[in-house]
Each structure stands twice: as structure tokens, then as C-alpha cells.
């Protein structure tokens, strides 16, 4: 289908973007990569009166290593994350996630900020933000506001972003070399949204124990879900089997056309087993 009519503003500055958001409120939508918004417009699931295109705001793009933090601008494309040496070196978990997002012709346009702001429950990047203890930098006319990823994802497609704010950047703490991570997912085809996915990180001890494990599942609830009981079990004596059993308490997945909740729980256990093997391997 074709989108319903809208007016188009190519924002030349952040101030112009904030003005448009103020003036048009709910009627305005920011356009970043457009890889989720334009499908929604085409299907007329979204019918905004005004699109505010932020693609010209070069200051919102870029990857910088500053002290112990990798700051990634909201307009940074998935393809740029994929090609970044800083990301490969300091955030290998993120580097592993990106090629699993959609397809090359979509990763060339889609952005980190768009993915974080959209907060699709099956998306990789929100889960990575949680697994890596990232901070979301929101910006409004009044200035910047920093929100821990664990407080940012509020519900199905709901975030802590306030009217008039945009995501300006995401800050990821540099991962020390002994901290390992992986992102695994099960989907019907390469590039599809995950049926179930897992972003896992842990510090591997000399004796093979996993300290401070982080298990963030996606596609299993309204937001990315941190599996606290399984994390505790994985760090304890029970190991992988106990962690897999503990998932029963952590996850309450929905039933949908992929299958019933038990199907997703099963896939989550499979992924946890694979992730533990990867972290230890």
C-alpha cells in the first residue's frame, strides 16, 4: 500500500527538530532509518501528519571511544556498527548481534537510535543495551537526560522517552577482555526477527566458573527480559541445568502464531545451553 499524505520536514538542526515536535506533538514522527516507520506508514498502521527527517543531523551519528565508554550516536546505521573496529574490539557482543538484524539492504539504513526508541520486543539492540548495562542519552530542548537501559524499556513498544525528546546516543561501558558475550537467536530465516533470542555475558573465571552472568532474552515478553533466577543459578553450583530449570520462573512468554508459551520456554532453554557452552568454550 501507499502511505496516507503527510508533510515532510528535513530538519537542519536539533532546534528545528524540537520546534517541529513541540508544534505538532502527537501528530509528528521522527524519521531516522525509516526501516520500521516506513513499513508502518505503507501499511497505514501509522498516519502522522508530519514527518521530521533527522537524517541530515550529522552530529547524531558516529562511534567514539571516550574513557571507559563507547558512545554511539543515535543515527549510526546498523551497517556502521557492523563495520566498526571500536565496536568489534570493545563491544564484541554488540558486534555479534548486528549481522543478525534484518538484511544488508535494511542495515544500510536502520539506526541504533531508531531501534532503541522503537523498542520492538524481538529486536536485538535493546537486549544488547540491557546486557551491556548501557545508558540511553535522551535529548530535549532542556538538554540531556541519562537513563539506564534497565529503566528505559517500559512495556510493549513503550520507553521512558518523554514527548519532545529524542534518543541522541547510547553509551556502552567498554567490556574488559575477560568479559565474554554472545548473542544467539532462533528464527525461521536469517534476518527475521527472533522467535526467541538471548544476549548473554559473563566473566569467565580461571576455574571455569561464570561470574556475574547476564542473561537477557528477547522475543519472550513485552520488553527484553533479564532472567534473574537463571543468572543466579548459572553463577551457583547447579550450573547450566539449574539455570535452564530456573527459566521457568523468569519467563512468561506469550502464545502467538509461532507456538504456545512452552515452545518458547523450550527454545529459551536450548539457547541458554548453547550460550553457556559458548561462554565457557
Amino acid at each position, binding site marked *: 500500500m501507499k502511505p496516507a499524505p503527510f*508533510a*515532510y520536514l528535513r530538519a537542519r538542526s536539533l532546534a528545528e527538530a524540537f520546534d517541529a515536535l513541540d508544534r505538532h506533538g502527537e501528530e509528528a514522527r521522527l524519521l531516522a532509518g*525509516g526501516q520500521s516507520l516506513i*513499513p508502518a*506508514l505503507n501499511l497505514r498502521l501509522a498516519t502522522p501528519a508530519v514527518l521530521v527527517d533527522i537524517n541530515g543531523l550529522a552530529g547524531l551519528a558516529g562511534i567514539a571511544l571516550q574513557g571507559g565508554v563507547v558512545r554511539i550516536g543515535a543515527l549510526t546505521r546498523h*551497517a556502521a556498527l557492523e563495520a566498526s573496529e571500536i565496536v568489534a574490539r570493545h563491544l564484541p557482543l554488540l558486534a555479534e548481534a548486528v549481522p543478525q538484524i534484518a538484511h544488508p*539492504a535494511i542495515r*544500510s539504513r536502520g539506526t541504533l537510535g531508531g531501534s532503541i526508541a522503537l523498542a520492538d520486543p524481538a529486536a536485538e539492540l535493546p537486549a544488547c543495551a540491557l546486557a551491556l548495562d548501557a545508558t540511553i542519552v535522551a535529548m530535549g530542548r532542556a538538554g540531556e537526560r541519562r537513563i539506564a537501559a534497565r529503566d528505559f524499556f517500559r512495556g510493549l513498544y513503550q520507553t521512558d522517552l518523554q514527548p519532545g525528546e529524542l534518543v541522541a546516543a547510547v553509551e556502552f561501558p567498554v567490556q574488559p577482555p575477560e568479559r565474554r558475550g554472545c548473542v544467539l537467536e532462533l528464527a525461521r530465516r536469517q534476518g527475521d526477527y527472533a522467535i526467541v533470542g538471548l544476549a548473554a555475558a559473563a566473566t569467565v573465571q580461571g576455574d571455569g566458573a561464570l561470574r556475574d552472568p547476564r542473561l537477557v532474552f528477547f522475543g519472550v515478553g513485552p520488553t527484553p527480559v533479564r532472567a534473574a533466577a537463571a543468572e543466579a543459578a548459572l553463577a551457583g553450583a547447579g550450573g547450566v541445568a539449574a539455570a535452564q530449570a530456573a527459566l521457568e520462573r523468569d519467563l512468561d512468554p506469550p502464545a502467538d502464531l509461532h507456538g504456545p508459551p512452552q515452545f518458547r520456554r523450550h527454545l529459551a532453554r536450548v539457547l541458554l545451553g548453547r550460550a553457556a557452552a559458548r561462554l565457557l568454550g
Partner: protein
Amino acid sequence: MDRFVAIRLTVNGEPVEARVDARLHLVDFLREQLDLTGSHVGCEHGVCGACTIRVNGEIVRGCLMLAAQCDGAEVWTIEGLTETGEIAALQEAFVARNALQCGFCTPGMLVAAAELLRREPRPSRERIRDWLGGNYCRCTGYHAIVDAVEQAAAALHGAPAE
């Protein structure tokens, strides 16, 4: 801010100026206003890849970009890439390996495959499959397409590393 937007761009190396409805997709602009009907429109929500074109050196979905966003852009379609001869080896291999039947998916396949071969001269079969995972073909069953891309890579750059 307007419902109509003035754009200047180059398409297949030629300068183009137009005033477009803000909601017009790039692929519809190419097809309907410039008569470049080689890029196809299948799903219009990013899933099928039939509309794959090259914008500013990168492949994109023509149905997920607005023509209004292309001010200053350099756009290459299947027509231009055919004319310059850039994708001739791929095209020959598609014919030789019977990698098209109805041909609906073919322009998108070729543009996507050309991008892979630009980046990676000798991709493995698995890599070719992964790369083209976002391009649907409802006819061939894909094997012949993978064969053709592999053959074109070999023709251009020698046999693939085992």
C-alpha cells in the same frame, strides 16, 4: 514544511530535478516518473527485496525510502548498472544457470548480489545464501541463484577458496 518537496539527484549518472509528493516512495518515483520500471514492487514493506536499488553506494529498499529523502543522492538502478556493464558477469551467469524463471525478483537479486561481490570477491555458498536471505524468489528454489552468483564470482575473481 510541505506535502511536496523539491529534489535534485542523479539517477544512473544523469541529473534529475523533480517536485515530489512527500509520501512517494523512491521506487515509485523511479518507476512512475522516470519510467525506470526495472526495479520491482512486491510487498511494499521491506520483506521481499524486489525493489533493491543502490543509493549513495549502498543497497537499500526502494519501498522504504522516500523520494523526498533523495535530495543530493546518487541513485543506480538495474538499468544503469546494466548499461555500464558493471553486472554483466552476474547477468551472464544468471542466464547460464537458469537462475530466473518469471524474472520478477531478478533485478533486486542482481543489485543485491553485485553488492556482495563488490565487498567480498569469493563468498562461500553459505555466505551467498545469507546475503540474499532478504530477497524472495517464488520460482527458482534459490539453488540456481546461488549457483549463478558463485559462477559469476569465479568468472570475476577465480575459483572460491575451499
